[in-house]
Structure formats: C-alpha cells, structure tokens
C-alpha cells in the first residue's frame, strides 16, 4: 500500500532535463533584457557624442548664449546650475534627513504617522510640473523671489525632498537595533544615540540616495519652465535673488531652434549634463565606499 504513494526517485531524475531547460530559457530572457537596454543606451550615447563632441571647446564653456551658433556657449547655464544646486542640496538635505530622523526615531507609530508616511511616498510620484506650479505660486509670487536662483532652488528642493526622505528613512531603519540598545544601555540620550550611532551607520545610505535625488534636480526642465526661468541669458547671477538659466533650460532652448547647428550645440550641452551626473554618482559611490571601509 505504501509503495503506491511513495515518490519514485527514478521519476524525479527523469525530470531533471526539463528543469535544466527551463533554467536556460529564463537566463536567456534576462540576458536579452539587459542586452536590449545596453544597446539603446549605446546608440543614444553614440548619437549624442558624435553630434556634440566637435562642438566641445574652451570657447563653448566661456561663451554666453548667442544668436549665432558658432559663438553660443554654455557658461551661463553651467554656472546657473551650480548656483541652483547650492540652494537645492542644503535645503533638501536638512529638511529631508531631519524629517526622516523624526519619523523613524521620534514619531509614535500611529495612524497619523502612517498617513504622513503614505503622503510622502505619494509625493515622490507627483509630476514635476506640479512642483513647478507650487513654486510659481509660493516662491515666485507670494514670497516675491521672482524667477530667481532662490525660487528655482527651493522648487527643486521640494521636488527631490520626498525621495531624500524615503531614502534616508530606509538607511536609518537599516541601523541594527542592537547598536542602538548598546548606546542606550550606556546611558546615552536619544540625541546622542542618533548622532553617534544611528547617523554614522546610516550616512552611506543617506548620501547615496540623496545624491541620486539631487541628480534629478540637475536634469529636470519642467519646473524651471513653469517658474519662468529664462533661456537666453548673457550674464551670471551675482546673488540668490538674481535671474539665471540652467543646463536643461539651455538644452531645451537649443533643441527648439530650427538651425541644425543649434541641435548639435544641444548635444554638446547634453554631454556636459551627463558629465555632471556621472560626477555626482561617482561622489555617491565614493562616500559609500569610504564609510563602508570601516
């Protein structure tokens, strides 16, 4: 009787070929997906570099916007983006990490906290144009910053804030409870525990997540258009209330011109933008490695 219900090893061994086949097919599907993505990326990079690289010259960095393509440069946009980021990074980092610490370490785990949490996650998915409209209403009009570095910087900071908060929360949540217990067990206060145990452990995660969020602020165009950032700018800002232009605005402007030369300039601008993004991601990797080395 028992023999009828017992599994037969011969039968199972007979199925191995089929299982291995499935194994191979699945691997092939994933490989194709990766190859597809890589090829598109390579084509895109090839087009941009072959189009824009000849236009990269010292003059390109030195010149302001111009009606004549051969004289047009990207100086105002590069410097403008740096100005804007000098507002975005501290604003989003302080508000974002502060919020994350509060939600993870101080807030009671009740319905209100969960509601706030859900809204922050949802904000991360709100289209960037909406943040532009918010910035236009609050910073440009109500606070009267005009279409300045400050208005655009605050708008972009709000845009990336949800991502900074969520990334920081995840990094803080990953701190082992045993370490916090060790600190509390020695009579440390909550702040001492956060400052000396939680933050040092969480900083690689916070930095990596935040820098990726900041990269988004560098590449976003829509909020800048809504806030009213000009595209044809032949001066550098000398203060945070001055008008300016940024890299994606300049690229957007050049691509919308009819002349082919301007399209090539746009490609050159994109190369610069990509360079800045790669630089920022490298910083993220560097921070992660540096802190993990301990």
């Amino acid at each position: 009787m028992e023999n009828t219900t017992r599994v037969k090893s011969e039968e199972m061994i007979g199925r191995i070929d089929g299982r291995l086949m499935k194994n191979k097919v699945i691997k092939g599907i994933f490989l194709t997906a990766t190859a597809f993505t890589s090829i598109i990326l390579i084509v895109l990079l090839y087009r941009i570099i072959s189009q824009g690289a000849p236009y990269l010259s010292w003059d390109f960095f030195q010149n302001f916007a111009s009606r004549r393509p051969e004289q047009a440069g990207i100086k105002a946009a590069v410097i403008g983006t740096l100005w804007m980021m000098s507002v975005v990074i501290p604003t989003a980092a302080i508000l974002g990490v502060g919020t994350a610490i509060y939600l993870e370490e101080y807030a009671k785990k009740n319905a209100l906290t969960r509601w706030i949490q859900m809204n922050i996650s949802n904000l991360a998915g709100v289209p960037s144009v909406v943040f532009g409209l918010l910035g236009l209403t609050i910073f440009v009009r109500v606070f009267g910053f005009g279409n300045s570095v400050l208005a655009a910087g605050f708008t972009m900071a709000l845009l990336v804030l949800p991502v900074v908060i969520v990334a920081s929360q995840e990094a803080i949540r990953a701190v082992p409870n045993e370490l916090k217990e060790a600190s509390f067990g020695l009579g440390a206060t909550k702040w001492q525990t956060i400052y000396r145990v939680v933050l040092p452990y969480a900083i690689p995660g916070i930095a990596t997540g935040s820098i990726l969020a900041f990269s988004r602020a560098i590449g976003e165009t829509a909020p800048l258009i809504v806030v009213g950032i000009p595209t044809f700018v032949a001066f550098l800002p000398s203060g945070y209330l001055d008008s300016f232009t940024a890299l994606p605005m300049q690229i957007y402007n050049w691509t919308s011109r009819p002349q082919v030369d301007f399209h090539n300039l746009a490609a050159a601008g994109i190369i610069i933008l990509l360079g800045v993004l790669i630089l920022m991601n490298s910083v993220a990797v560097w921070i992660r490695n540096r802190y993990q080395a301990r």
Partner: protein
Amino acid sequence: MTLTAVNSTKNSESMQNQELFVYNTKNLNLWYGDHHALKNINLGIKEKDVTAIIGPSGCGKSTYIKTLNRMIDLVPGVKTNGTIEYRERDIFSKNFLVEELRTRVGMVFQKPNPFPKSIYENIAFGLKIHGIKNKQIINETVEKSLRGAALWDEVKDRLHEPAYGLSGGQQQRLCIARCLALEPDVILMDEPTSALDPVSTLKVEELIQELKEKYSIIIVTHNMQQAARISDKTAFFLNGEVVEFDATDTIFNSPADSRTDDYISGRFG
C-alpha cells in the same frame, strides 16, 4: 536601624538584620499589550551576588532583566505596575532619570554588539557621552576596562583596529569592558554566552567569577550548568512567575517546588 547604617559602605558588616538589596522588586506586573508577561514578581537581589535567572523560553526572564534598567521602555505598548527599587529608589519614578539608571547599571546583551568603531572607541564611547574629554583619563580607562575584562593582552597592540575584527568571544568581552568603563554598580547580562562557542563561554564565565568581587551581577541564562557553575543565587521563572528563588545549591540539589525539580532535571523546557 539608623540612617548612617543604611548609607554605610558596601563592605559594612553591621547589617545583619536588614539585607542590603541592590534591587528589590515588589509586586511587579508587566504586560505587552494584552499579554501578561510578568506576574507579581517579588525578588530581592543582594549586593555582590551573582544572581542567575533561569527558565524555559518565553518565561519572562529576558523581559525581567530588561525591566531592571528600563531597556523595556524601547518596546512599544509595554505597561507595568508594582515597583522595582534600585538602592531604595523607585526606578519608575520621574525623579530617577533613565540615563542615570543605565549609567549605574551596565548591560551585556545576548549577541555581542560592539559599535562599528575601533576597539578603543568602543570603550571611549561611554565616557564621551558622559562628557569626559580628557585624553589621559580616557586612555587610562580604556586600559583598565580592557584589563578588567581580561582582554587587554589580546588587543593592546591593535586598539585602533575595528572591533569587528575580533572573534565573537572577544567581542563579548569587549562589550563587558565597555560596561566596566563607566564603573557600574550592577551588571546585567542577558544570555551573554548564548552566541559563543564553548571555549569563549568558559572565558566569559571565568571573567564573571572575577567581576563578582567588585560588581553585583544578574545573569539570565538558558544554560542550567552555567547557572550552577557561576551563580550564588538562582531564580527559576516559569510562565511569567517566579517559582522559586534561593541559593543556587538549594535550587539544584533540593528544590522546594516540584516544577523546579522537573525543569532542572530536564523533564521540560
């Protein structure tokens, strides 16, 4: 009994009638939400004793030791009533800051939990959070604490290397040293050897024997032989109650309660 007698030094022998308790627990009840985890606990723990708390999983022994330095506060939804007096001060009182309690009462945890810092910084941590910045004092304390935890000879040449490079047993002794740096009065140990191999366990047990000269030690252990080897008194917990609390010899050789007998002779748990 006069006040001066109560306040007299630890080694005073004039206290025949009133036993000197470091911890006196009176009618302690504790709930995790609706779960009644500790039921009417009464325990007087004497100074310079090694007091072992034994019992099967889920009997409340870890909960109890975590209540003694109020680490249990970190668990949401815990309610208590009754009192625990630490040197005649109610630890639940608003006037007794939890930071002070945890400075006077050190804790060693189940899993070695050194900070991801150097060996030196692990010991210095406790001093720094209490505002001690003097390099010389810190250096001396680091050495003294590591010697106190029988770790100095093994690590003196690599004080500034990461604590994670140490073996599990060394890490646990580092955690004990980290406690000693604050000159605690009592050391609570929550299954300190459960994550260690037998050789490391033996070293920690030997260390506990040395430490009892200076400190009162309360140790939760799963390992009954360990309790028998190192403790002066043993409390047997079962389902959140103290079944029996007596001298370790009595508990292991002639327990008064049949449940204690069943447990120590391995009939359950």
